[in-house]
């Protein structure tokens, strides 16, 4: 022991030196905290590892997970995203227009999509694959391998505050893994492999104060801190991380409400950054957004290395605000009863925010493009010729509204059906409903899951607004800040939202009957073959034949 320890220390030092000296690989950890209007808190962990391309750097890595590197090389992956989610992102309350809701809010269950680098001669089968398991239950057994991909696991750094009960008690949690690689492409801005791991959770902080309601009926937001949510404090950085910081974000709508408060209650205390909000730790940096005036407070964990960092928020006044939503709120539901057939309806309702995005003066002239992507399992047999679009309750002539419809019909027991509809809606549309009829299939007795009468889940539909980008631009010098999470937010991502998962009950056979059905049916046929007259017919014929011989 006496010898091993110094050896290990030496090895670590050498490794650390190696890292610093040949630092092509990088790892960074970040955490974003944001209060939500319905007294909840969003915590978004962002871990990112990058490695330079193989041809410059070789096959051996110090930080980058070997499993991912081998996966990328074996299947020639260009892009891959895998998410495990429990709960549904509430687009109405938690927002649908910011980068987190459009690229980190995921459908319940497991979703996986990947773009492969397919050789030219195999391109006919396509290079994109999509799959979803809406019923998959997400648990610690999914989190542990995900954490193993981090260089410090959950032993130190930001990941160390990931308390399992706190995560799985949350209203929504989604762990995501995204790989972007430019190993095989010829051109690219950032060559190499980029592994982005995010964990998004929405928790309700325990309200220590008795919720005093004010005269106006408004409720005071609960005060919280990192230790009250996760039960732990941030006790240092992961030594392998290049940057390690925590952000606290106040949304634009909240900021404007706070500013109003500031006008009303002119008396401001010394430590407050905004009237009405008090942070327990002074931020290292305040970053403002260019367009929407939302504010980010940055806390560098490295600077707080000497004592545990526990960022907390105290609210002075009750405050009500709402998040910015996508132009249309998407919902999906089933129509019809019985286990024979039905229809799927996807409804798009214009939100208040649509006016803000589009602007009042353009409302009558402009058109908005909406793309709906839907995968259905084969036992839900979609009749694509029955697609109907209702705008404001009126049935529309489909070619006028549907810009493009692309389907890949399901194959029984082989492949699911895929449908992508591009709609062109006038901006004045208040509601749009797309319906399509389907028949329910009947499965073989072995194809039913253990609890067959519970029904089957249809994966969420994806509603995309390709013309509208959810991106935020921060004022100030971005390059010096060099934060992966902020640069991710500045990327142009189309606004995206997922609909609910549908539960389709299917008719079931009697599972206890196989022997009975086989014997009874066979008896029935035997009845035909053994009826006296048929026996006679056969015997006569036999006699004839033997007589002839």
């Amino acid at each position, binding site marked *: 022991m006496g010898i091993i320890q110094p050896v290990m220390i030496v090895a670590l030092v050498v490794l650390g030196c190696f890292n610093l000296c040949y630092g092509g690989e990088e790892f960074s950890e970040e955490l974003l905290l944001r209060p939500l209007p319905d007294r909840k808190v969003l915590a978004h962990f962002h871990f990112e590892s990058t490695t330079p391309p193989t041809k410059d750097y070789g096959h051996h890595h110090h930080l980058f997970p070997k499993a991912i590197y081998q996966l990328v090389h074996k299947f020639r992956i260009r892009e891959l995203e895998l998410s495990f989610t429990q709960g549904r992102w509430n687009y109405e309350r938690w927002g649908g227009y910011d980068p987190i809701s459009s690229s980190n809010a995921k459908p319940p269950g497991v979703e996986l999509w990947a773009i492969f680098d397919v050789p030219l001669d195999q391109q006919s089968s396509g290079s994109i694959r999509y799959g979803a398991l809406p019923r998959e239950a997400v648990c610690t057994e999914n989190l542990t391998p995900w954490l193993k991909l981090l260089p410090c696991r959950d032993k130190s750094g930001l990941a160390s505050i990931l308390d399992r009960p706190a995560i799985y008690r949350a209203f929504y949690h989604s762990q995501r893994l995204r790989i972007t690689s430019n190993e095989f492409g010829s051109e690219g801005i950032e060559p190499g492999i980029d592994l982005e791991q995010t964990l998004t959770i929405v928790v309700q902080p325990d309200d220590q104060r008795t919720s005093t309601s004010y005269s106006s009926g408004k409720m005071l937001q609960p005060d919280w801190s990192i230790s009250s949510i996760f039960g732990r404090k941030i006790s240092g950085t992961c030594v392998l991380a290049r940057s390690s910081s925590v952000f606290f974000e106040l949304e634009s709508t909240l900021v404007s409400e706070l500013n109003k408060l500031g006008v009303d209650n002119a008396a401001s205390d010394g430590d407050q950054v905004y009237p009405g909000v008090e942070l327990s730790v002074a931020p290292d940096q305040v970053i403002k957004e260019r367009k929407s005036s939302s504010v980010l407070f940055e806390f560098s964990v490295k600077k707080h290395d000497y004592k545990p960092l526990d960022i907390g928020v105290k609210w002075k006044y009750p405050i009500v605000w709402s998040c910015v939503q996508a132009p249309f709120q998407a919902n999906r539901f089933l129509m019809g009863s019985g286990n024979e057939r039905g229809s799927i309806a996807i409804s798009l309702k214009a939100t208040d925010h649509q006016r803000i995005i589009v602007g009042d003066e353009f409302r009558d002239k402009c058109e908005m493009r909406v793309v709906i992507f839907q995968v259905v399992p084969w036992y839900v047999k979609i009749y694509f010729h029955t697609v109907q679009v209702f705008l404001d309750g009126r049935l529309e002539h489909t070619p006028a509204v549907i810009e493009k419809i692309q389907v890949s019909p399901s194959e029984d027991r082989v492949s699911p059906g895929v449908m992508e509809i591009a709609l062109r809606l006038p901006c004045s549309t208040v509601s749009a409903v797309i319906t399509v009829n389907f028949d329910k299939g009947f499965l073989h007795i072995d194809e039913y899951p253990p609890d067959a009468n519970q029904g089957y889940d249809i994966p969420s539909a994806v509603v995309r607004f390709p013309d509208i980008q959810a991106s935020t631009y921060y004022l100030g010098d971005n390059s010096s800040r060099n934060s992966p999470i902020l640069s991710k937010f500045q990327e142009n991502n189309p606004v995206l939202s997922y609909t609910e998962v549908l539960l389709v009950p299917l008719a079931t056979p009697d599972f206890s009957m196989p022997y009975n059905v086989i014997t009874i*049916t066979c008896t029935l046929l035997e009845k035909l073959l053994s009826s006296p007259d048929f026996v006679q017919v056969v015997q006569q014929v036999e006699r004839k034949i033997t007589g002839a011989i």
Partner: protein
Amino acid sequence: MAKLRRFWGWAIASMLFRLALIYFPRNLNFGFRPEIATPVTSLRRLAEGYWLKQSSMSPYAGSMYHGSPLLLSLLGPLTAKRFEGQPSHIACSLLFVVADLVTAMLIRTTGQYLQSAYSQSLKHLNLMRHLEASAFHPAGDIAALIYLWNPLTVAACVGSSTSPIENMMVALSLYGACLGLSPLAAFGWVAATHLSLYPAILIIPVILLLGYGPDSPPRKLFLGRNFGSSGYESLPQACHFSWRPAVYFILWASIWSFFVLVLCSISLMQYGGLFEMFRRTYGFILAIEDLSPNIGVLWYFFAEVFDFFRDFFLIVFHVNIMFMILPLAMRLNHRPCFLAFVYIAISSMLKSYPSVGDSALYFALLGWFVNELADMKCSFFLLCGYVGVTLLSPVMHNLWIWRGTGNANFYYATAMAYACLQIILVVESVSAMLHHDRTMKKSISQS
């Protein structure tokens, strides 16, 4: 003349009845009933296949359409047509009404021809008193009216399934064969086989019809009767097989099938060609891939049977039809039309996706033998049974699928009862026919 007017009155009334049902408020929903529209005959699936083809995909993509590509080209444009204020698929429904009328006319003419030929051969045997003894019914008119007024036919016609077209082709084939028109018989047979595979076994009765002529008493009776008196030449046609029309039939059948295959391969040029067509139509029928409930028993059997035995039972059930073909053909070769009826009844019982349209056809053909089968046993029981099953089957389906208060066994029970009734019908009618032949033999030997 009065009889004739009465027939036309009833025929027109049945047409009007169908039209009234088509224009009935849309909640009738016959097209969704599993008893009427099977995966092979459903017009909704045909409309989907047409839509896929219009959007330049294979009509067979997506396990939806399993019918003929030619039917798709014929009916597809009609399904896509919408008339303001009219029920959907109105053009197709009108076409099916016309098809039903044509089938009824074909059945009527064939029946009349059969009857006159039969009385001719009875005259030969000096058995006219045998004819006069029992009330002599106009078999053709009865068969046609059974076809037109059978509730099952009406449901199949109104319920937008393609079985009226299939039935028309089978009737056309038998009509052509009865009247000795080889090209027409070959066309009907090829078209019917192309549409639904099972009429392929009708090749035996059709060839027998062309070779021996229409149904007659057993050949032995003629031989025994005429041997001494007038010599071999005066024997009616029924006693020796004439090869010429049969060979013509084979020739024409190959010409027509070549023609059909060429047309199919042209229409499926970009979508996998003929192999894809056979895989998606005949393959789908033979492999019983779709396990949605219908009035047959096989869907439940294959939904429940262990995967390991699936292939074995598939072979058993299909060989069952084959197994009965040869003995019946040898025993009933003097009655090819009756043989055709038995074949159609057996195949409609054992086929993978049976519908009420199939039983509509064999009920009408049963009408041809109304005189011969006058003393058939169990006929009242059979009638009650069919009425009961027809009424109970939708109820049980409703209980299982819509209300959820019953389970699959309820519906399976009615399907079994239906299969039982069909078995009893086939067995009883065959035994009645054999009995009829025996009494004729007896009366000849007595005279």
